[in-house]
């Protein structure tokens, strides 16, 4: 664990050098522990791939006290293991050419049958590494190397809501219609970001996510929409 100043009310904890389940578990443990030791002095936390940004109220506390308290969470972080922490969440996905415009091309590119692409994508447990880019956009890792396709050369102007996509070894679900350059392989009928729902998002950083293939009928039943 390495600590650096970030701003006049923020410090950042570095918990590893590269992405992976083990580092993600450490980030998850650090997030919970930082929340505990900082209590009401905390303004917000931004967990990400291998770091945790800690934003505190500088009128209630100072950087020295915050750093001192964060040194005290070392045991929590060291106790985290790759399989631990976070909730287990299953998200339904309708994998098909009509719900995932790049599925067939990606299968060809990877020299695999479409069924195999689906099996590899849905057969892996992913960690939520980070949330950002747009409200509710969760970066999940890591995708099996056999289907880890690079981003499109020209991003699409409009990716449909719920699109399940792959970029290199990451996968994500577009929470809203937006531009995007990831490879679309299916669609998830569950809303990933709904300002009027409680909770707003089904996942948080550190959660473990699995995708469950569903049929077209089930997709439509769950409220999924086809463009």
């Amino acid at each position: 664990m390495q600590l650096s100043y970030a701003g006049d009310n923020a410090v950042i904890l570095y918990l590893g050098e590269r992405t992976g389940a083990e580092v993600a578990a450490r980030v998850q443990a650090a997030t919970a522990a930082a929340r505990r030791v900082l209590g009401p002095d905390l303004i917000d936390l931004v967990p990400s791939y291998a770091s945790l940004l800690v934003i505190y109220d500088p009128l209630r506390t100072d950087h020295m006290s915050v750093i001192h308290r964060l040194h005290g969470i070392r045991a929590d972080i060291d106790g985290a293991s790759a399989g631990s922490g976070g909730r287990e969440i299953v998200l339904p996905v309708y994998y098909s050419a009509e719900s995932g415009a790049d599925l067939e091309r990606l299968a060809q590119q990877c020299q695999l049958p479409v069924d195999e692409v689906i099996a590899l994508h849905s057969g892996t447990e992913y960690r939520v590494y980070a949330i950002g880019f747009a409200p509710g956009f969760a970066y999940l890792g890591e995708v099996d190397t056999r289907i880890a396709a690079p981003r499109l050369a020209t991003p699409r102007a409009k990716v449909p809501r719920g699109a399940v996509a792959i970029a290199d070894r990451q996968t994500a679900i577009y929470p809203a219609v937006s531009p995007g350059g990831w490879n679309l392989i299916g669609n998830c009928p569950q809303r990933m970001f709904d300002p009027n729902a409680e909770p707003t998002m089904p996942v948080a950083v550190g959660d473990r996510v699995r995708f469950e293939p569903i049929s077209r009928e089930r997709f439509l039943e769950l409220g999924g929409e086809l463009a």
Partner: protein
Amino acid sequence: MSLVVRQPGLLSLLQDPGRYGQHGIGLTTGGPLDRNAFALCQRLLGNDPAATAIEASFGGLELDAHTDTFLCVTGASMPLAINGKERELWTVHKVKAGDHISLGYATDGCRSYLGVAGGFVVAPQFGSTATVVREQLGGLRGDKLAPGDVLPCATVSEHHRLQVPRDQRPHYQNQVTVRVIPGYQQQHFDRLQQRRFFSSEWTVSQRCDRMGYRLEGPAIRCDIEGILSEGICFGAIQIPADGQPIVLLNDRQTIGGYPKIGAALSLDAERMAQLQPGGRVHFAAISPHAAHNALHLNHWRIQHMPLQAAPEERNR
């Protein structure tokens, strides 16, 4: 009981102090770019510090009063007129139903705060009314003000008319020195690059907005091209591949993968956000200790600044 937007000007947004504690779902903070001017606007009106006001950028806002209330405008030097008569900034004024309120274009600074007694009454989203257009959250419908928008507020017939004494009002200049707290990836910028960063004069580019201010000057090189995306705090100074710094502000994305040379002292980033394109910026280093002290001194000054009674209004 409301003020109604006749003309929104270049960019007018409803803002409260900001949306905090929501980075976990990817939401940024929003809130006023110039927090001191916003806080003084609320203090003059005797409002809750978290009340909702309008942030007008550059100017051109025109409103019609549909109720009696009191308002004040703080921040940039946008000429305020009520029914065509110029009125003093940093001062509480009475307005009556039927009055026409206008803000001209700023000569010094570019962000102003128009508040009313009791604040505008808007439903919060995720605990805040702050408008973030990119996220379609806050304000009336997650967007900037538009002609015809109705801004609900209370009817107020009696109120103290206070003003900020003239010698306490800020002078917005075309040049700001931004103090920088060392941190993040600063060690990946070698001594020459750091010297270049701290000794050069920077110009505010046309690409400056509520997400961040892009500055133009000599290219700053970093030892590393990118980093694993990580949390970005207010004021963080990102150096993308073209070497031109971006000082990240209220509507920044919450995570990003460009190396950062440090972060601006928030007080100075707020002064910088009053610069128009073409404004000049210099950077200077500040220690975390000195930065902490500066925040406390500023907080005390804003909270305890003596306000005085405004002179009687004539020509009403």
